[in-house]
């Protein structure tokens, strides 16, 4: 007879190695190039912004969960990811209270109030950013150009310090070299400027099968097509604003996007459409944040509309 205790659980009795925690840490690693690009172009202060945001996210999660008398979940790493992502999409000039309040808002009202990881309808980092933009509009639009990045503007350099590339497009100013846009030596949020850094991170995530290629490809593809339709430069649109970061790191957030393959394609297309409509006709020069949030709203519907055909499913006759 059996003399010791055994575990009697339901099959399957084996699991593959990837845990939620490991996924979150892989995402953090994939964002390291973007963090580095922020430091290179905007200075060491960027690290203070990131640190305050992440710390605030973790502390907020602990406090809120204790208040709600729910078990602590900071070990799953999702608060760290939210804090980091939020820091990357705000200007590098903000005072530290901005990322701290933003991260607290993102965690408390963007995530935990809905039940925590898995239950939030909106991307928490984007909710945090939207809140910050609405509450501190001037602090959240105080842009700077990196040192020695205005050579392309010639004698008009001094007049351009306050705007981003997309902002300048609205005023009719163009001419930033593609290479500069690609490397990231331009003004913008501290982690969003370098397409190179972001693509490196994104490649890492695709190779490790952390993100589904469908969303970035459909998002970016739609943006390029829309740009052509609007008579604008598709490459310029691809490399400016928060599009690269948004397409690879925000629009691919599991919780707030569809689970079906077709649903993901439609999600990306919707984000692309909305981003370009906002960029062209909206009140702000940049549309990524709001377009993703709006498509997050559509996610449950997209899931329902794109239920895959079951193996062996026979269409009802008549």
């Amino acid at each position, binding site marked *: *007879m*059996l*003399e*010791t205790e*055994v*575990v*009697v*659980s*339901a*099959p*399957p*009795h*084996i*699991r*593959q190695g*990837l*845990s*939620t925690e*490991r*996924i979150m840490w892989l995402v953090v690693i994939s964002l390291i190039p973007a963090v580095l690009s922020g430091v290179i172009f905007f200075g060491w202060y960027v690290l203070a912004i990131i640190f305050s945001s992440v710390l605030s996210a973790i502390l907020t999660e602990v406090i809120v969960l204790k208040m709600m008398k729910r078990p602590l*979940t900071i070990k*799953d790493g999702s608060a760290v990811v939210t804090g980091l992502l939020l820091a990357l999409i705000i200007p590098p000039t903000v005072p530290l209270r901005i990322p701290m309040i933003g991260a607290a808002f993102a965690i408390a009202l963007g995530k935990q109030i809905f*039940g*925590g*990881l*898995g*239950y939030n309808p909106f991307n928490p980092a984007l909710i945090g950013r939207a809140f910050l933009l609405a509450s501190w509009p001037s602090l959240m639009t105080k842009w700077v150009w990196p040192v020695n990045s205005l050579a392309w503007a010639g004698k008009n350099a001094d007049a351009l310090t306050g705007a981003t590339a997309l902002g300048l497009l609205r005023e009719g100013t163009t001419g930033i070299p593609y290479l500069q846009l690609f490397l990231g030596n331009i003004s913008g949020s501290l982690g969003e400027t370098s397409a190179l850094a972001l693509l490196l991170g994104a490649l890492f995530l695709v190779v490790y099968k952390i993100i*589904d290629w469908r969303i970035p490809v459909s998002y970016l593809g739609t943006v390029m097509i829309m740009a052509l339709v609007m008579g604008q430069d598709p490459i310029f649109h691809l490399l400016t604003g928060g599009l690269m970061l948004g397409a690879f790191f925000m629009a691919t957030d*599991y*919780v*707030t*996007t*569809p*689970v*079906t*393959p077709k649903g*993901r394609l439609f999600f990306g297309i919707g984000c692309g459409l909305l981003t370009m409509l906002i960029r062209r006709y909206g009140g702000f020069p940049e549309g990524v944040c709001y377009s993703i949030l709006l498509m997050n709203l559509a996610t449950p519907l997209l*899931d329902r509309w794109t*239920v*895959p*055909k*079951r*193996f*062996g*499913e*026979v269409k009802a006759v008549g």
Partner: protein
Amino acid sequence: MRLRTFKKGIHPPGNKERTASLPIEVLPLPQQVVLPLGQHLGAPSEPVVSVGVQVLTGQKIAEAKGMVSVPLHASISGRVVAIEPRPHACGQLTPAIVIENDGNERISSELVSNHNLDELSAEQIKDLIKQAGLVGMGGAAFPTHVKYSPPPGKQIEYVILNGAECEPYLTCDHRLMVERSSDLILGLLAFMKAAKAQKGFIGVEVNKPDAIANLKQAAAGLPIEVLPLQVKYPQGEEKMLIYAATGRVVPVGALPIETGVVVNNVATAAALGEYLRTGLPLVSRIITVTGQGIPNPKNVEVRLGTLIEDVINYCGGFKEPPGRIILGGPMTGPAQYRLDIPVMKGTSGILVQTRAEVEKPDHAPCIRCGRCVDVCPYNLLPNYLGDYAEHDKLGEAEKYGILDCRECGSCTYICPSRRPLIQLIKNAKSKIMASRKKG
């Protein structure tokens, strides 16, 4: 040449290296066998012997009850010491016939050997299939003769033997295909004649090259084709096998016969072949005893009713206090809490995991990563099914196809949040079926 396969699925580590080349060993006869009357799908058999009676190996000790049932035979000779509820792999006690070995094996004289396939009609073969007590030995244990009695209007075009053995760790079918191929081929030819089918297929995953080569040789000149299949789980799942072998899709809720196909496990075919050759009905089977908790893994042929305790002891016992004891493969086999469980017609292996291998049962909420959707061979949405099951939304679950789930476990294997999806789905399915019966 691209290998035949189905869409989606998973690639768990095979873990077959320790036993894939080990020849089948025959376990010495046990002191006692416990033969459950219900070791197949359908009505349990009814005893035709009583306590105290002497029985011989191969003698019928229980009769089939109705159409979807099979007879049961003594797997050793000796005295019937009890007919009473005994522990069963399902976790409960079920009625069983217990035979005490008298140490003097004698084969029943009822047996008729050397059946000539050429002289048997389809109907006669079907009857022999039933008389042999054959059930699906891949695990489902469905009475085999029923598969060969298609509803009127339906013809069987192909007989497919399932030699995929896609579950990690198990190698019993592998060794059977290498060592018992002549019985296997004879059984397949018999199935084909019973089905009036023109052609037979044997699907084998390519991680068993010696089996493929051996079967190809044994099938030379016969209307039987050996199909190498991609190594993927669940390749051995019936509908996936049919799709990989023939490209045919069995409709939702229908049986393989709808596509003109019948599938049987290779061991079932070999058992039929052995029966036709020797007259011995189904009284033994090959199982793999393995796992990190077993220092001396083996492929053993055991008499039905042998307790797993005796089998494990023959293999040298546990390495250390076991973490989990599984009857079958790691993807679908039920975990056991006692060792006085008998090996049955559908038992394919004993897998022992160490304590270090057993993960803590904590699970997190679904993070909607979609990996389960990516792997489900039936194109279901396991994350939603799991959620609906957990929150008792059975109507929604049914709408989203929970009854089509074959419980292969791919979704649960891949889930990063360690959600017990199959357990949730099984529970919900049984609740739905129970309410259907009532209503």
